[in-house]
């Protein structure tokens, strides 16, 4: 595996925002997730829960509710606007003011023709969904107090709204309120406080299920407007509800971080009558559960602890398979860290700002596992706040450390950084070519002479950087005509190749000498999560969301021998079972046969000169190898050398002096910055 000096970096204070809303699109198996800072993320559940797209948020625009209408995604927030997203250009395509104060919830009918929005002023506003926009149609009867939750009856004729202290049923055609269901307040001190119906569900048999701030899940008969059953599930709030497609299971998320399942069952075997019975309790969150989705096989939840949890229901999936394992997605599936290999600098990307750090220096030599004394501490050189309201969507640092660039939805900014002994000066490059707009990915060439920017429709803009000016060189376009955004962009060390991968799973390789498309790698079914070009052999290595690894020779335009061998033999089952995608691929310039890659929980060096692991041999054999005598090691060693010494990795990179930079973000550190959890009495404490 080789020995490295490791810079163990723990000063990247990346703290994801809390999960605020979830919406699942059954047809394409895509989950939309909204965070408290207004960012929206899209996960592909068919492709190993890969985070395909991220739409950056904007100051003052929070997302309170998400809603799919066909392939279109709508969001509404407390700023009183309804937004439709452009999922190809990763930005809001338009916003419509609802004119009812903050919008608490939106919900579309099953036909996809109407969108109802619940507003602060007590109105339910109906919007007609047209081809390219939405248009206000009318108000339903105005109520006193805010509309916190909404749910359509599957037929689209009725709509239930959760308010303060009550639930209202409206006739969607006439707009008249037909029923008023009064919800009890909590007992004790909370009696004086209004109860908030945080979530409401309208089932096709006219049953209404509500979850409220008094910790109750209540089942109502919608025909008569009477209470059928009350389940007191929590001392705190029931914040979210979700129902399965078959309407035989309902889940409720509480402030305690628990999720409680109710199932529609007959209480005794002989009995025909079915009722809602509390069945299971899941506890996968340490903080409040704010959003829930019930897919056919799993419970998907998110909340204040910022993690997305996919908990398969074991009666719906086969046991002991990949499908039946719990998934926690805590870190983004894209790199937020950029490492300048030559200069030993790190660029950290936050939604609000960028941080540029210089790595520290160690002293002396030690044996493996020793920690060396620090001669020079790492220091923060630049803290650059972004301009404007839009959050930063991507950033890049040139390998020499002399250029820095970031992009928001609306603009791209490029900075020149100069280092004198102890002085750092940063100057903004004022004149940028006009072609640099709506950029999804930025990358500098290894010699820092060019900036590559992935723009709309999978095109890549090449800009020449100079001391005096920046000039647009050319725009590279794929032949496929794909409209999907590029999410990976990599330039080869020799400055000849540029590879761009988009979310349609295509990888295009451009020749930078001729500025033309060189070839397109055969499209694989799974989306690439990391790509890299070997500096010596010019082979493109791509790792995909389903953990497959391919090596494609750019010279021959075909998969290499090693790649074919790997596919023939198949990857080790333990490798395939890992649940976080590989987010970075680099190479060791001294040894071209070594490929370095990492995911959240391990980093791995693949030695292409060694045999591939057999299916029955242990994959994680580093410890075992160390205990064996020198002569026997050769027999047992295989290509995958995996180290789990470092956890919660956000970046692993090899510097020019062959020292390794490891950026960690322990979950405990994130947890320490979260809002307060509920106080629960534990026995014997």
């Amino acid at each position, binding site marked *: 595996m080789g020995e490295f000096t490791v810079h163990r970096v723990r000063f990247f204070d990346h703290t994801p925002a809390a999960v605020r809303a979830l919406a699942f699109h059954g047809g394409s198996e895509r989950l939309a997730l909204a965070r408290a800072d207004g960012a929206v993320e899209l996960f592909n559940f068919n492709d190993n829960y890969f985070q395909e797209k991220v739409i950056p948020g904007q100051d*003052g625009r*929070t997302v309170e509710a998400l809603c799919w209408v066909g392939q279109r995604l709508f969001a509404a927030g*407390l*700023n*009183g606007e309804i937004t439709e997203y452009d999922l190809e250009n990763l930005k809001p395509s338009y916003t419509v003011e609802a004119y009812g*104060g*903050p919008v*608490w919830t939106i919900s579309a009918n099953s036909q996809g023709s109407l969108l109802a929005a619940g507003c*602060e002023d007590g109105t339910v506003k109906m919007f007609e969904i047209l081809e390219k926009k939405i248009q206000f149609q009318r108000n339903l009867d105005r109520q006193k107090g*805010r509309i916190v939750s909404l749910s359509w009856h599957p037929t689209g004729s009725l709509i239930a709204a959760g308010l303060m202290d009550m639930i209202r049923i409206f006739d969607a055609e006439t707009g008249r309120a037909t029923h008023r269901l009064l919800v009890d307040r909590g007992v004790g*001190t*909370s009696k004086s*406080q209004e109860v*908030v119906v945080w979530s409401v569900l309208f089932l096709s048999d006219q049953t209404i299920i509500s979850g409220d*701030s008094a910790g109750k899940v209540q089942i109502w008969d919608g025909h008569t407007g009477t209470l059928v059953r009350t389940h007191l599930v929590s*001392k*705190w*709030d029931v914040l979210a509800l979700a129902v399965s497609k078959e309407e035989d299971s309902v889940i409720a998320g509480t*402030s305690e971080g628990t999720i409680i399942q109710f199932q529609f069952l007959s209480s005794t075997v002989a009995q025909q009558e079915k009722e809602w019975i509390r069945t299971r309790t899941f506890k996968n969150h*340490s903080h*409040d559960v704010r959003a829930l989705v019930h897919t056919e096989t799993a419970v998907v939840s998110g909340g204040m602890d910022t993690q997305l949890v996919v908990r398969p229901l074991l009666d719906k999936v086969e046991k002991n398979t990949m499908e039946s394992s719990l998934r926690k997605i805590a870190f983004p599936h894209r790199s937020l860290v950029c490492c300048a290999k030559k200069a030993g600098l790190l660029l950290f990307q936050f939604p609000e700002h960028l941080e540029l750090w210089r790595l520290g220096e160690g002293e002396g030599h030690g044996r493996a596992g020793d920690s060396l004394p620090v001669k020079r501490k790492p220091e923060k050189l630049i803290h650059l706040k972004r301009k404007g309201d839009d959050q930063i969507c991507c950033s890049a640092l040139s390998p020499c450390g002399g250029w820095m660039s970031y992009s928001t939805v609306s603009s791209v900014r490029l900075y020149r950084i100069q280092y004198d002994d102890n002085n750092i000066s940063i100057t903004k490059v004022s004149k940028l070519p006009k072609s640099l707009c709506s950029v999804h990915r930025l990358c500098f060439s290894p010699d820092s002479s060019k900036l590559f920017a992935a723009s709309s429709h999978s095109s890549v803009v090449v800009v020449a950087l100079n001391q005096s000016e920046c000039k647009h060189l050319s725009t590279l376009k794929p032949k496929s005509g794909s409209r999907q955004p590029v999410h990976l962009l990599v330039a080869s060390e020799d400055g000849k190749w540029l590879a761009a991968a988009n979310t349609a799973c295509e990888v295009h390789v451009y020749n930078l000498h001729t500025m033309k498309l060189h070839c397109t790698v055969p499209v694989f079914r799974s989306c690439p999560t990391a790509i890299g070009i070997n500096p010596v052999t010019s082979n493109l290595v791509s790792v995909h969301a389903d953990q497959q690894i391919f090596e494609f020779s750019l010279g021959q335009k075909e998969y290499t021998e090693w790649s074919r061998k790997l596919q023939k033999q198949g990857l080790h089952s333990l490798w395939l079972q890992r649940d976080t995608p590989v987010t970075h691929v680099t190479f060791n310039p001294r040894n071209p046969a070594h490929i370095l890659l990492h995911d959240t929980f391990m980093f791995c060096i693949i030695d292409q000169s060694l045999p591939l692991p057999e299916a029955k041999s242990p994959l994680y054999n580093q410890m075992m190898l160390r205990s064996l005598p020198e002569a026997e090691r050769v027999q047992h060693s295989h290509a995958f050398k995996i180290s789990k010494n470092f956890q919660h990795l956000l970046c692993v990179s090899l510097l020019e002096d062959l020292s390794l930079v490891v950026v960690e973000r322990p979950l*405990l550190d994130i*947890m*320490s*910055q*979260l*809002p*307060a*959890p*509920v*106080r*629960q009495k*534990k026995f014997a*404490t």
Partner: protein
Amino acid sequence: MAPKQRGKTASSSKTADKREDHAENMGLFLESSDDEAPEELTFEESKLAALRCLKEALDSARREKEVLKEKRRRRQELFQEQKKRKLLPADVLEEIDDSTSKKQKPSEHEGEEQQQQKKKKKKQKKEEWEVGAYTKESAKTMTCLNLSFATVTSVSSHCGAHSPGFPHGDGGGYIHSLKGNYKVVTVKEPASATFQQQAAEAFIQSRLYGPGSGRTTNNELLSLQNKKGKNKSAAVQFVKKDWASKERAKAEKLKKRWLLKQQIPSG
């Protein structure tokens, strides 16, 4: 009437209490030398002492009253001054009034326009008021930073630089009578939507984290996990070096104190 009376009686009883207190104090004073042999005190001396004591008490009460009075007076003054300050733009207004009336005279022959102008004048008065307020504000801030306002519409006014022709279409031509080289800028109004948004956010915050929501801290939660887990360890703030530095410092201090306490009886 009844509560008033009650109040009175209460106050009177309070004063009675005070007196009793004095008496008690005096008693203590006299009885302080209990276990020693009684010192000789003449009646005169003790009487003098008692009288001095009483006088001092009265004096202090009076002083307190005076201090309160002074305080009230100062507050009253402050209020008056504030009122005056609020009224300050009045002279500016008057000036404007004067100038407009002067200008109206020549335009009187225009008949129809005059009526319109009168209507407008009423409206404009309000605007001018606002403008006046802004200029005052901007004059204040001018000294430190020039561009604190978002420039939506900007009108520069130079003293006497205007032609007599009275522009009454656009809203910004009227403040030319203001002295000084001010730049008038309308501030970008914070939309009411943001207030509503803040109120809505505050609602969620108070519902989830407000009083009576039964919340604890992350530190406690993690410490509990440490305590109940398989590998027992101390509270997180002690396990993690960079956590809760204040609490750690306090704990350190308490530990030192405890050690010292332990040492004293043993040594």
